[in-house]
């Protein structure tokens, strides 16, 4: 099962992006990600949490791992990895061309192909990013019309009971 975790540090060689932005650190001290434990290597205790290597594309030997520190304990990560998904496939509403204005298309992925989910900064209550692999071939970033909690629901139960929120404009 995926694990919603507070990541305090994420160092990667892939794109030099700051996955835990200084703004996140300044505001909360962490950024929440929904990660797939099947990408974790060398899991160790660090303080009250954990540290480990994480593979964005575990099937590709050219992919160097990134390094994470999180507030989740080793035991919590092990429990998450031992928990079964509702199904080996997960269906997510993909926004075509990563455009939140477009009508989402339900798309089914193997749960093992997904690396992690990240909140969509512009509208985290209604959208999130899924980072997954087309098997070993390539890494894909896709906008999904679910928030992270809804994705957690779907992975765990096969359906979501949480509704997305709508901003109401002034009349």
């Amino acid at each position: 099962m995926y694990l919603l975790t507070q990541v305090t540090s994420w160092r990667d060689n892939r794109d030099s992006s700051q996955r835990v932005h200084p703004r996140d650190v300044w505001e909360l001290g962490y950024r929440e990600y929904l990660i797939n434990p099947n990408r974790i290597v060398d899991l160790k205790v660090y303080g009250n949490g954990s540290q480990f290597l994480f593979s964005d594309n575990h099937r590709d030997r050219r992919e160097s791992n990134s390094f994470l520190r999180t507030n989740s304990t080793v035991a919590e990560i092990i429990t998450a990895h031992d928990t079964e998904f509702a199904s080996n496939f997960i269906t997510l509403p993909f926004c075509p061309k990563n455009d939140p204005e477009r009508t989402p298309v339900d798309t089914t992925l193997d749960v093992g192909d997904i690396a992690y989910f990240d909140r969509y900064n512009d509208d985290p209550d209604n959208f999130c990013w899924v980072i997954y692999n087309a098997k070993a071939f390539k890494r894909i970033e896709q906008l999904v019309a679910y928030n992270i909690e809804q994705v957690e629901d779907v992975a765990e139960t096969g359906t979501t009971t949480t509704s997305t929120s709508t901003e109401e404009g002034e009349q």
Partner: protein
Amino acid sequence: MSLFSTIVTEWTTKKPGNRLRVAINDTFMLNTNRIIEMVATSDLTSAFWYANDPDDARDSPDHIACNCDVYAIQQYHDRVETDKFGTFSIFPGWDRTETPVDTEIEWTDICYIYQTPTDYSERTSHMVYYRKAWERVECLIDMTPTDVNVEAGFEAV
């Protein structure tokens, strides 16, 4: 993860050779563990990318449309074979006159299985599997798709 039989209506590939108009009625046993980005194209049909060799970064996935709906494929993907290995009777050198050799192959390594008209009358099948990321292997097995299902432990679907 499991193999499931379906009629394929589109199979676009960059690899050499035709996929369609080879098997009887274009019916193939496909492996759910190769499917990427599956979408429903109607209530009864679906389309998806299909990785021939999911462990090889050089392998660009094919595109397949088939007469099996998303829900059914999901059910197939949630099945578990009796053993991680299946026993396949492979004819040495594609020669039906030779004695087939029982060979253990992991279910996850099988890409697809189909029957040509000759296979149908001889009760054999063509099978494509991968030696992990290393290489693609095509062989002739002394089994029908039904026999393969029985070997997996899925007699009634």
